[in-house]
C-alpha cells in the first residue's frame, strides 16, 4: 500500500515538475543526459547494434540529433527528453543485439547437435 501511495506521490511530483517546465524552460543545457545518450549509442554500435537492432539505433541517433538542435535553440527541456529517449533506444538496440546473438549461438549449438546425431547414426549403421 505504501508503495502504491509513494508511486502516486512520485507521479504527482513528476506531473508537477513536467507542468512547471512545460510552461518555463529548464535552466541549463542537459549536457549530462546528452553525454549518456551518446555513450549508449556508441556502446551499442561497438556491439554490432547496426546489424541486430538498426531501427532502435536509428531512432536513438535521430533523437540525439534533435536533442542537440533543441539545445542549440535553447529548448533545454525538450533536449533533455529527447536525450532520455535516445538513451533508452540505444539500450534497446543493444538488448536486441544481445538477444539476437544469443539466438544465433543457440542455433549454432543446435545445428552441431544435429550434425553429431547424424554422424552417430552413420557410424552405427556402418
Amino acid at each position, binding site marked *: 500500500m505504501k508503495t502504491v501511495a509513494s508511486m502516486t506521490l512520485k507521479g*504527482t511530483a513528476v506531473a*508537477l515538475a513536467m*507542468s512547471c517546465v512545460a510552461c518555463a524552460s529548464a535552466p541549463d543545457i542537459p549536457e549530462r543526459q546528452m553525454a549518456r545518450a551518446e555513450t549508449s549509442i556508441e556502446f551499442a554500435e561497438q556491439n554490432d547494434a547496426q546489424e541486430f537492432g538498426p531501427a532502435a539505433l536509428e531512432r536513438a541517433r535521430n533523437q540525439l540529433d534533435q536533442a542537440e538542435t533543441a539545445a542549440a535553440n535553447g529548448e533545454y527541456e525538450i533536449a533533455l527528453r529527447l536525450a*532520455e*529517449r535516445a538513451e533508452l533506444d540505444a539500450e534497446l538496440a543493444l538488448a536486441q543485439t544481445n538477444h539476437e546473438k544469443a*539466438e544465433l549461438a543457440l542455433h549454432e549449438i*543446435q545445428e552441431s547437435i544435429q550434425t553429431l546425431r547424424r554422424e*552417430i547414426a552413420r557410424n552405427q549403421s556402418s
Partner: protein
Amino acid sequence: MYLKNSYILTAIAALFLGACSSTPERIDVLEEASQTVAEVSSHPDAQQVAGDELADATEALQNAEYLRANNGDYDDIYHHAYLALRNAEIAKERIAEADARERIESSEAERTRILLAAREAEANRAIRQAERSDLKAELAEERAEMAIAHQLHLQATLLELEAEKTDRGYVLTLSDILFDTDKAVLMPGAQKTMDTLAEFLREYPEHRLLIEGHTDSRGADAYNVALSESRANAVLLALIDRGIDPGRLEIAAMGESYPLASNDTSAGMQENRRVEIIFSDTEGNFPAAATRTASNY
C-alpha cells in the same frame, strides 16, 4: 497520511495541467506501452531477469496514465509512455535473451550427454566385437578339438581293422587264408572284415581305398597277375555289395612283384599271397609312396 497528501497534490497537478493543454482521445504509444508492460509483467522470469527495466517501465506507464487521466499535456504523456514502452521492450529482450541462454546451457548439456552416450556405445561395440572374436576363437578351438577327436577315432577304427601304419599310409593286409587256394573267392572268415571295412567307408565318406592283389612266385607271371587282379576284384565286389560307391575304390594287380617274404619257403610264399588295402587321406588321395606300378600288366 501519505495517501491523503498525494490526493491533494494530484488535484493541484490536475489544475495545472488542465490549464496547459488538452489531451487527444487516444495516444497510440500509450496503448502500446500499456500492452507491452502488461505482457512483460506477466512473464514469470521478468522480475528476476529484468527487474529494473520492468520497474522503470511500470513507473513511467503510471505517470503517463496519470497524466492522461488528468488531461495532461500530450507531449508529457507521450514522453512517459515512450519511456515506458522502451523500458518494457528492453525488458522483453532481456527475458528472451535469458531464455535463449538457458536453452544454450541445456543444449550444451544435451550435446555432452550425446557425446558420452556415443562414446559408451562405441565402447560397448568394441566389447561386443571382442566377445565375438573370443567366441570365434572358442569355436575354432572346438573345431580343432573335434578334428583331433575325429582323427583319433579314425586311427582307432583303422587299428581295430588291424591296419598298420606304414610309409604308404594305413595298410590292411588280407592274408591268403581268407581266399580259396588259387581262387578269387573270399572265405566266410573274410566277410566280417568286409563288413567292418564297409562300415568304415560309410563313417568316413571322404576316404577311398586302393585294393592291391599280390601273389607268390609260383606259376607264370601272367597267371599271377590275373590271380592278383581277381582277388583284388573279389574285395571290390564285396564292398560294392555292401553299398559302397565304386568310385571310391581302386584296384591294382601286382602279381608277384612285391613279395613280403622269401618265396623259398612255403611260409614265405603264403605270406606273399595276399590283398593289401591302402587307405587314402581325408582328401581321398593316397600317399605318394602308396602307388606302385603294377608290373607285367
